[in-house]
């Protein structure tokens, strides 16, 4: 199973600043292993963020997003908002984590 994310969400002046770190190798498909064989691409492809059940952000990644991806965005919200982050990767693995806006 995939490792948990770190989700931080801080409200300031009606805007919630969301910072997400995901644990994922984001294998580019460009690298070769010791024996010279190409390591197949394997990466988070979609990410969805909901606040209190409503979409506040949708993202799509290609294999060129860095290992252990970082994402920062802001939405109009309030302290106490329940934020749910879900990612899906190119092999069908997925992970959901939650945080509360502080």
């Amino acid at each position: 199973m995939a490792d948990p994310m770190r989700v931080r969400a801080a409200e300031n002046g009606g805007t919630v600043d969301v910072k997400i770190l995901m644990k994922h190798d984001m294998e580019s498909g460009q690298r070769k292993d010791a024996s010279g064989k190409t390591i197949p691409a394997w990466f988070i492809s979609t990410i969805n963020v909901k606040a209190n059940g409503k979409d506040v952000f949708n993202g799509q990644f290609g294999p060129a997003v860095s290992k252990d991806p970082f994402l920062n965005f802001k939405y109009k919200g309030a302290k106490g908002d329940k934020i749910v982050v879900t990612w899906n990767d190119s092999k069908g693995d997925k992970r959901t984590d939650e945080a509360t806006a502080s």
Partner: protein
Amino acid sequence: MKTRILYGVIIGLFAVLQGCSSSAKNEASTAAAPAGGAPTDEIEKYRAMIADGNPADLYEAAGEDIWKKPMGPKNVSLQKCDLGMGPGVVKGAYTQLPKYFKDTNQVQDLESRLVTCMTKLQGYDANEIIKAGFSKGKRKDLEAVVAYVVAESKGMPINVVAKHPKEKQAYQMGKESFFYQGGPMDFSCASCHASNGKRIRLQDLPNLTEQKGAALGWGYWPAYRVSSGTFWTMQRRLNDCYRQQRFPEPIYISEDTIAVSMYMAVNAKGGTMNAPGLKR
């Protein structure tokens, strides 16, 4: 296929409407960075940009779970592990390591101490951890615990002292090792880390023989290493230094690696522990 095209058309329409109805909002936009600064200044800017959101966070979280979870042949957690401030005390413990431990009659760094705890408390085989290789087997768990323990000293002053005779000896031998030249390139640690204002390519080389430089070195490791996308403990940092020095491989938690750590940490006393850092 047909539905896809239809979606496209509909979305296009929606987008137009959406754009019309929503008022353009003035989000503070960041000015484009002025071009043409000195490369080293630009690198500083780059580092500042990635400072927030250090993936070492992910290791810290995992490490805290591992610390608290009963594991190993004896199925106990590490919560009774004595890192030098008494069993289970994590806060600030890293600021005082390496140090002499009476129960093992040795100077130990954080990693060798964790091996002791994993062996004595949890019943793991020390040799297995030592031979595992970085990011592998039980060593991987240990590395995450390092991230957790180190983060619990973040922002605190480095306070490593050589008081016990074994600590003094470790410091002296660490210093001697630091200046020990060998290998086909005649390198020692001192080749790169014994004067001020030096760099390799664009990477600044802290002068580890002085307090200021030692604090910059010791105070920012362990770190998440961008180039390998992995959290590197101090043992791994030293391992790769020796690799680049063209030396044979230092054995994990060997006496030399702990002595060199002692030398750096004592020199860094009074500096701030900023680790886990984020490095190239």
